[in-house]
């Protein structure tokens, strides 16, 4: 047998995904550094990147960026394969699933603010479901729902507004790859 030489062709799309995922990882590090009064409550700044990517490049790219962010972010925070990693993975999967549907909302009536709110509720639901099934198998966990849902709503609105603003202030660039 001859040894095969695998060559990776790095396309423009790959570079774009890597760049955006790096931005998302950076934001999730900032996220982790912000002190919060309650465990489980987080601004979820990295979702801003996911939503901008969703609006610009579609769901597939958003899923890549989100998945890479979860894995790389957890590696940097020392959370890889720890409970926190699975919680954020569950949240990311749920919010991507909801975003796949939310994207079909008529754009005239619904802006990314709606996407952001729906995604942040889905994120919370996914995490709670996993936590209930695995980490804290007791219904008492659901007493946290009002607080978590309120936080999800507030941060969902704020992140959504930031997304709208970013999309508005930085209209589609054609020469994405030439920037360094």
């Amino acid at each position, binding site marked *: 047998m001859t040894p095969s030489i695998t060559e990776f062709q790095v396309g423009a799309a790959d570079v774009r995904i890597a760049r955006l995922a790096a931005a998302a990882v950076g934001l999730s590090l900032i996220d982790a550094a912000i002190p919060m009064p309650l465990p489980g409550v987080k601004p979820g700044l990295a979702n801003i990147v996911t939503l901008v990517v969703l609006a610009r490049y579609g769901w597939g790219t958003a899923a890549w960026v989100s998945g890479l962010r979860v894995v790389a972010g957890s590696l940097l925070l020392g959370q890889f394969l720890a409970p926190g990693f699975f919680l954020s993975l569950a949240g990311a999967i749920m919010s991507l699933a909801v975003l796949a549907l939310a994207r079909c*909302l*008529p754009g*005239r*009536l*619904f*802006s990314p*603010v*709606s996407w952001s*709110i*729906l995604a942040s*509720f889905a994120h919370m639901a996914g995490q709670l479901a996993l936590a209930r099934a695995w980490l804290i198998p*007791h*219904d*008492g966990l*659901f*007493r946290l*729902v*009002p607080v978590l*849902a*309120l936080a999800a*709503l507030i941060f969902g*609105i704020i992140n*959504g*507004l930031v997304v*709208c*603003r970013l999309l*508005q202030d930085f209209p589609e660039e054609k020469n994405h790859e030439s920037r360094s």
Partner: protein
Amino acid sequence: MAPALTWLRLIRPGDWLLILASGLAVGTSFPLLWQGGQGDRAIIRQEGRIFLEVPLNKPREIQVPGPLGITVIQIEAGRARVASDPGLRQYCVRQGWLSQAGEIAICAPNRVSLAIGGGQSPYDSLNY
């Protein structure tokens, strides 16, 4: 234009609807979920053995004899308390009304305890 206004202009009609609906849902979830721990029965123990288990539906008074005398337990709709106790420090009496599942008043000198049970009793402590 005021900065707040430029932000608000980004929100479209459907967004407002969603914000309103989810705000309402969150608002109503607050009281609902905080009532979750309501107990529905009182469990009275004497010397560690169950003396009586009564539902918290109608008012009544129960006298529990102990080594020091009679401990009186008062039951009302949705709550119960130790009304009087022959013990020295009266801790269980001063605890007042109990209504949440898992709450307990212990009259140690007279070896009587009053616990509230619910549909599913929550943990009273957890450690990892």
